[in-house]
């Protein structure tokens, strides 16, 4: 009885803020405005057949995949070094890493403009050497940079926490049995940290696919992602039906993606890794 009571807030929260809104999105996706209220319709989905939207979806996934890969490449070594360092500096590094996260997301992203604009700090510095201004903003590269910058800590933390749990004795055992440091890493450390990488991937990839703020700021409005199109349906066009249909499609793709991630997670758990942050 007591236990169930404690869970009530969770159920209420989930119902009100997760399940109910989802149902509304589904409702809008499968209906259309008709003269007599709403009617069942697949019109919103048939509009998606337009190759234009497919192009935007593909571009969104391309940018999210690249950003996620960059996050792994930068985040893994960072997490590794962090997990191996001695305790005093470790605390400072973790704080330094999390410090930007305490600042507003928009501010953080806007500050990149000061650096990257044609009249920004980097170009001003380069101009001292007679270099013509380089246009960084408004490209897919800039959007990837903004995404990596904002979501990198979400990659580092899960990997870091997994690596912390790695027992030194495992590494010693591997070394005693004749593995060189590279082999120790490949055969022990890396497989052990796979669950951390996977939860990092899902925490970086999912928001990256649907972002519209980053693409608007870093992309100077030149790089349209699927999030921009969805946002526009709600805020400008007032076509909630099409916006919902787009959201449903993205959700299905992301769900499929999460399914594969989770399967990988389960397989990794059958090995020796720990499960965290899901």
């Amino acid at each position: 009885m007591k236990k169930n009571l404690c869970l009530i807030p969770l159920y209420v929260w989930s119902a009100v803020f997760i399940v109910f809104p989802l149902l509304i999105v589904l409702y809008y996706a499968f209906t259309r405005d008709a003269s007599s209220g709403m009617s069942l319709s697949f019109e919103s989905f048939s509009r998606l057949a337009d190759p234009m939207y497919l192009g935007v979806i593909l571009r969104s996934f391309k940018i999210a995949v690249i950003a996620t890969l960059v996050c792994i490449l930068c985040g893994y070594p960072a997490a590794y070094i962090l997990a191996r360092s001695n305790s005093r500096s470790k605390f400072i590094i973790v704080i330094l890493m999390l410090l930007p996260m305490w600042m507003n997301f928009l501010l953080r992203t806007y500050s990149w403009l000061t650096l990257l604009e044609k009249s920004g700090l980097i170009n001003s510095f380069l101009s001292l050497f007679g270099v013509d201004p380089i246009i960084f903003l408004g490209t897919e590269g800039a959007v990837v940079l903004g995404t990596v910058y904002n979501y990198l800590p979400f990659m580092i933390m899960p990997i870091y926490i997994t690596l912390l749990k790695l027992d030194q004795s495992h590494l010693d055992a591997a070394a005693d049995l004749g593995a060189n440091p590279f082999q120790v890493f490949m055969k022990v450390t890396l497989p052990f940290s796979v669950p951390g990488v996977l939860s990092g991937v899902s925490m970086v990839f999912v928001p990256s696919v649907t972002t519209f703020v980053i693409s608007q700021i870093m992309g100077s409005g030149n790089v349209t992602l699927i999030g921009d199109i969805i946002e526009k349906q709600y805020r400008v066009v007032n076509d909630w039906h099409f916006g919902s249909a787009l959201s449903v499609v993205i959700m299905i793709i992301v769900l499929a993606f999460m399914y594969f991630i989770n399967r990988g997670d389960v397989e990794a758990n059958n090995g020796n890794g720990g499960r965290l942050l899901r």
Partner: protein
Amino acid sequence: MKKLIALILCAAMLLSLAACGDDRETIKVYNWGDYIAPGVIDKFEEETGIRVIYEMFETNEDMYTKIKNSNNAYDVLIPSDYMIERMIAENLLAEIDMANITNYDKIDAEYKNLSFDPENKYSVPYTWGTVGILYNKTMVNEAPTSWGALWDGQYKDNIIMMNSQRDAIGITLKYLGYSLNTLEAAELNAAKEKLIEQEPLVLAWVVDEVKDKMIGGEAALALVYAGDAVYCKGENPDLEYVIPSEGSNIFFDSMCIPANCENKAGAEKFIDFMCRPDIAAENAGYIGYSSPSKAARELMGEAGEDPTAYPDITKYDLEIFSSLGDKTKIYDELWTEIITVRGM
């Protein structure tokens, strides 16, 4: 079980707390962001004893969505021309009793009975403005006089466009010699092709950020509202504003009362207050957009004669946007195509 009771009691307490509060007369005002001089609301509250709950929106469409889809009742709204036309058509606005707006006669006759509210029953003009090109004198070879400057290859990566579909498509239609309210498929398609052709030249598509970028010398040319141009010119004297010879858009932001308002008398008092010359001058002086009241302009000194904010509107072919009604779809699809092509 005790815990459950405690929980219910807590909830009940919270609810009763929320219920009691200030019992002064209140009005709810819904205006654009940064679109009123600081202190004006305090002054209104002091003079009338009416408490103002002030909320802000970013686009007409945001405001419309909220009015249409929520039961949240506002008493004063300040939308733009085409949106007012649409809201009148959808019965979302209440008629204003002009007898209660004692300062209504301070509004110049040329800003009354405009196309979006021909009998002037639903709206009282707050500000107006034009759309034009803001350019940096040190970065252009010659002062632009045509929209063509925004399509000039020599300004590649030096052009900032407005990320707003009605404005961007509108000036393109003007450039091509069409009405900015056209619904002709051929003309709209021509505008679309033109905007796609322009794409490689454009440095950025923004709305509010244009001010920072132009002041900082980030680009040579930008499509802006005159009110923003006034602000930018004040911050960077190298900037100048021009309304191109092909003509442009003239817009009005007017005060309205929604049909489901809760305090119409209070709303009318507020509108009246905002029309008072000293208050109108304070607002126009702060936000930089043009005041429709001569009495207010006279109080503003030099700023009341600034040709950027107060051009001779008879010299240009200026059109007011009309509501597209259910034809908005055509624009939306056009615009989606344009923004999708960007950077591909």
